[in-house]
Structures are given as structure tokens and as C-alpha cells.
């Protein structure tokens, strides 16, 4: 809701009036892009809260929970613990008019974008709430550049903390969260947060709407069959997304025993209550890295990105289409894909490059 409170950006910004008016309308006509906090609560309240096994294949989980028009939140961060195996199955199944929310990501949004460009009747993105979309040192994301320049997706820009805080608000069951950022930058004019006067201090304070996706997709090192999950290395925003989302599909490198979970309950970063499917999947973040398991497969990032770059430069989709035909639609399972691309020696090498970060599975 626009309350007429704002920083001095309104007189300093060089954004054109048309853009500012259009973006302002998104604030005044605000709607959650996905479940409202109340709707997300109703889904939670109706769930079976007992300790029941939720193990299933990723394919089964995707069949059950993925629907056209839904809002998906990505766990992981850039190239780390990215939920690629789940996403791969989502792309194979096909889903249209997606809303995506993520902090900073690389191959996940590029994979969906590529599928949308070569098979638009099968996969499409409607809008994205994000902080950052690129490959870090590998380079910019060519498909983001293409989609943005051709107005093919609606975008809503935040910072990494902004998105994280929005997931956190979603996880807390509250409708919005105040943050000490966005104000004074052009983000104040274009994103769907808004400036208010703090009712206690009287200071200008920026608030962001909670984000409760329909579906959270998260990959972790270990979980028990009920969904109690351990994460080592960066938590990214995985605990917040899992708790904010109406439903969460959790893939893990290893399913561990519930007695192990109960031995060190402090190590549980995601409680079983907020998880709807537990899918054991080795190399479930490939070509991303998983702390304690394996390192990035830089060659694969470079290969896919080069196909996207070529399409961006020439407009020729042939090679990109061939990639999807061979590596998405030409494989039945994630294990098939991994076996097709990587030799056992290469898998050993990716594990070795992790450097043996300590994780506790017992």
C-alpha cells in the first residue's frame, strides 16, 4: 500500500515517469505472487504432522506438487547446493507461467529460460523476483539478458538480503518485514516493497512483503525419511524457503537414520514438518558444488553457458535445442544423465576437489 512516505530518491532518480508510474501501480495494487501468508498457513494447518516416511523419487514428487502457474522458490546460492536434479525433472515434466523467486542463481534460472526459449509450449516463466542472475567469475547470464531485453519476463528486483528477509517473513508467518535497505536507491521505486514511517521511532523504514512460494525446492547433504534435514557449509536460505513454502521437495545426497537425527537434534536445520517429499539423489546439485560431497563441474557450466551465449549472439537455437533433446528429454532419470556425461573417474575427481570438508552423518 502506498502511504506517501518515501526517501529523497523520488526527486533524484533519472528513471522515466512511465516506468515509475507502472511500478508504483504494482505497489498500490499489491498482490502476493503465490499463496498469501494466510493461505500458506491454511496449507500448513491441514498437513499430517506425524512422523511418516515421505521418501519418493524426484519424479514422483514433481508429478505430485508441480502445477502450471505456480510460484517456486529455489534453495542454494549461485552455484552452491543448487536443486538441479529437482529442477531437471520439473523441466522434463513441463510447467507454464511460473513465478520464480531466488537470491542469487546461475544455472537454475538459465536452464528454465533455455527450455522456455526452445520449447515455449512446454515450459514458460511469467515473472521472477530476484537479487541476482549470473555465473560469477564464469560470466554474465546470456539468457537473462535476452529475456529482459525482449520483455519476455516481468522482473522484481531486490538485494540478496531482501529476498532472504522475504523468505524469512514467509517462514515466520508474518505479512511483511522491515529492512534497513532499498530506501534511497531506485529499488525503492521499482520493487514491490514500500517505505513507511516506523510507528515507534518515526524513522523512514522500508518494508518488504513476505514470500510464501507454492513450492520450495531444496537440495541438502542429509535427511531422514521424515524430512529432518542437516546442512553443512552455507545454509543459503534453505531453512527459510522450506518453512515459507506451502510445500517443499527436499532432495538429499544421503538418507540417514532417524536415530542419528535424534542424537544431534541441534544439527537439524529443516524440521520434518515443513518437508513434503524426501528424495535421495546422489550428485543432486551437479554441476553445482555440495560442501563435504563434491566440487563444481566447471566444464559443464562453461559448456551450457557457451550454447546460451551463442544463441544470444546469433539467435540460432539449434545447438541449445540439441542440448535439451539429448540431456533432458534423452534421459529418463538423473542417474542416467550423470552416467551419460561423467565417467566414474570424473565423479571421483569432483569428490576429491571438495577437499573432504567434514560433515556429520552419524
Amino acid at each position, binding site marked *: 500500500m502506498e502511504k506517501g512516505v518515501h*526517501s*529523497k*530518491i523520488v*526527486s*533524484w*532518480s*533519472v*528513471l522515466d515517469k*512511465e*516506468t515509475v508510474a507502472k511500478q508504483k501501480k504494482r505497489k498500490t495494487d499489491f498482490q502476493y505472487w503465490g499463496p498469501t501468508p494466510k493461505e500458506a498457513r491454511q496449507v500448513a494447518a491441514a498437513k499430517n504432522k506425524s512422523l511418516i516416511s515421505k521418501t519418493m523419487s524426484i519424479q514422483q514428487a514433481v508429478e505430485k506438487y508441480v502445477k502450471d502457474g505456480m510460484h517456486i522458490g529455489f534453495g542454494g*546460492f*549461485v*552455484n*552452491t*547446493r543448487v536443486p538441479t536434479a529437482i529442477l531437471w525433472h520439473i523441466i522434463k515434466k513441463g510447467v507454464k507461467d511460473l513465478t520464480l523467486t531466488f537470491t*542469487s542463481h546461475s544455472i537454475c534460472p538459465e536452464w528454465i529460460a533455455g527450455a522456455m526459449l526452445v520449447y515455449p509450449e512446454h515450459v514458460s516463466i511469467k515473472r521472477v523476483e530476484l*537479487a*541476482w*542472475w*549470473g555465473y*560469477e*567469475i564464469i560470466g554474465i*547470464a546470456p539468457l537473462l539478458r535476452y529475456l*529482459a*531485453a525482449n*520483455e519476455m519476463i516481468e522482473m522484481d*528486483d*531486490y*538485494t*540478496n*538480503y*531482501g529476498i*532472504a*528477509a522475504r523468505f*524469512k517473513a514467509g517462514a515466520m508467518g508474518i505479512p511483511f518485514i522491515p*529492512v*534497513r*535497505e*532499498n*530506501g*534511497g*536507491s*531506485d*529499488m*525503492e521505486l521499482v520493487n514491490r516493497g514500500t517505505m513507511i514511517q516506523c510507528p515507534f521511532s518515526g524513522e*523512514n523504514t522500508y518494508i518488504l512483503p513476505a514470500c510464501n512460494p507454492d513450492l520450495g525446492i531444496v537440495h541438502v547433504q542429509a535427511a531422514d525419511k521424515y524430512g529432518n534435514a542437516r546442512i553443512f557449509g*552455507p*545454509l*543459503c*536460505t534453505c531453512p*527459510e524457503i522450506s518453512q515459507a513454502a506451502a510445500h517443499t521437495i527436499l532432495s538429499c545426497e544421503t538418507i540417514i537414520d532417524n536415530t542419528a537425527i535424534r542424537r544431534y537434534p541441534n544439527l537439524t536445520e529443516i524440521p520434518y514438518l515443513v518437508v513434503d517429499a524426501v528424495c535421495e539423489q546422489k550428485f543432486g546439485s551437479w554441476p553445482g*558444488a555440495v*560442501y*563435504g560431497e563434491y*566440487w*563444481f563441474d*566447471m566444464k559443464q557450466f562453461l559448456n551450457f553457458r557457451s550454447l546460451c551465449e551463442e544463441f544470444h549472439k546469433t539467435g540460432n537455437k539449434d545447438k541449445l535445442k540439441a542440448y535439451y533433446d539429448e540431456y533432458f528429454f534423452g534421459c529418463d532419470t538423473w542417474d542416467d544423465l550423470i552416467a551419460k556425461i561423467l565417467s566414474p573417474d570424473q565423479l571421483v575427481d569432483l569428490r576429491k576437489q*571438495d*577437499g573432504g*570438508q567434514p560433515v556429520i552423518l552419524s
Partner: protein
Amino acid sequence: MVSLADVSPYEMIAFTGSRALEDNTIVFVGTGLPIIAAMHAQLTHAPNVNLIFESGSLASILDQGMPMSVGDTRCFRNAVFAKGLCAVFELTQRGYADYAFIGGAQIDMYGNVCSTYQGGSYLKPKVRFPGSGGAGAMAANCEKTIAIMALEKRRFIKQVDFITSIGFGDGSSDYREKAGVMGKGPYRVITNQALFGFDEETRRMMLLEYLPGKSPEAIQELVDFELLMAPQVREMAIPTEHDLMLLRTKCDPEGFFLGRKIVEQ
């Protein structure tokens, strides 16, 4: 004696970044040159500098080499605290991060930085950049912001296309207060040819140091707005042989960042 010809532009940036850091502080770093600058500082004048990586680690020890990504395994090696984005950005918002290192495509005289798009409009950008990432939050709430940029006239401009990371806004004394952000704002801008600070009174960018062999006039030529000149504007310090040895063998032994030829956005 090291001659300037022996020092690559990136080594100059990393070394100058290191000099900007005080000991006993927390540096919120991104991938690449900021890490190298902070590591060099740790190895020389600021052994008690510790790092925050935005994916959620505090005071890690980079004994496995240069991280390739701010979220990668190496950023968490031997950390004292390993959580997620919320934890470290909340520490920052609370006041526990002294320096932000950010990059961008454009910067103006008040230190506002654009990393969202260039040309066209927000809704139909000619060139869309990756977006804020952590930079907007870091520039808002780290105590001091250090920007690393290539010194080019198309980048140092009167007004940026889009303010992604807040500086001093329009330069008015209460701009940041009205914006609701907590950090003090822009502190240094580091380029391979010059080091800039900001005038306390006007909050405008001020030339502090320039590359030996250049002149303040030559630096002004590369900037589209009028620079203020520090009362004692001087030549930049050049790394010693020991500094270069540390940069090349300890900080970035693979030459991943220091060995690059061209400046990326």
C-alpha cells in the same frame, strides 16, 4: 625496487584495496579482488581483519585457495560461524560489518552505483546486468563502502541509469537518514589509475591519489563529472617486491584474478 611496469592493473587495485583496510575490522567481501585485497591486508598490516561471505560464513581461513564463488566450499573452510544469508546480513544490519567491497558498471560523484542495467529503461533494458546481489544491502548497512571500478568516462558519470547501491544519493546531508539505511556510506573508490575518497562537507568524490606518471588533470579527463582534489593529492603507493610475492604466491597463486587482461563488469 619495483617499477610500475612490473605491476599489473589488478595487482594495483588489490594492493590499494588492502591499504584501505584498518586492522581489527570485518570486511564483507565478494569474489575476486576484494578477497585478494583482504588476504593481503591480513598478511601485512592488518592481521586481525576477518571476512564475511554473504552465503553465511564468518572469519573463514582461505587455506584451500581462492574461492570461485561467494557460496563455495572454500569460503566456509575453518570458519568460526557458518549459517546462511540471513545470519550474516543481519550481523551487518546490526552494525558488525565495517567495510563493504562492491563493484558496478557506473558510479556518480556521490558514490551511487548501478549494477542493474544500462541503456533503455528498467522495463526494457538495452543491457541487463545480473542485479544487486548483496551489493545493495552491503552499501546500505556496512559502515563504509569501498567500490572497485574501472576508470572510464562512460562509467564515472553525472547520474547513473539506476541506483542499485546507495551512496550519498543527491549529496544532501540527510539523504541516507531519509533512506532508512544505517551505514555511513561511500568511503573509497579504487581503480587501477586512481584512488578516490569523499569530501565530508559536500559528500562529493575527491581524488586522493593517482598512479605515478599520471596527473590529477589526466584523471579528471577520465571522469565525466568534476572531481574535487584532496588538499594533499599524491601519487599512489606501489607494492614492494614482498607485496607482489604475497599477492602472486599466497593470495591468488593461480592468477585467476590478478592475471586477467581486461576489466570485467
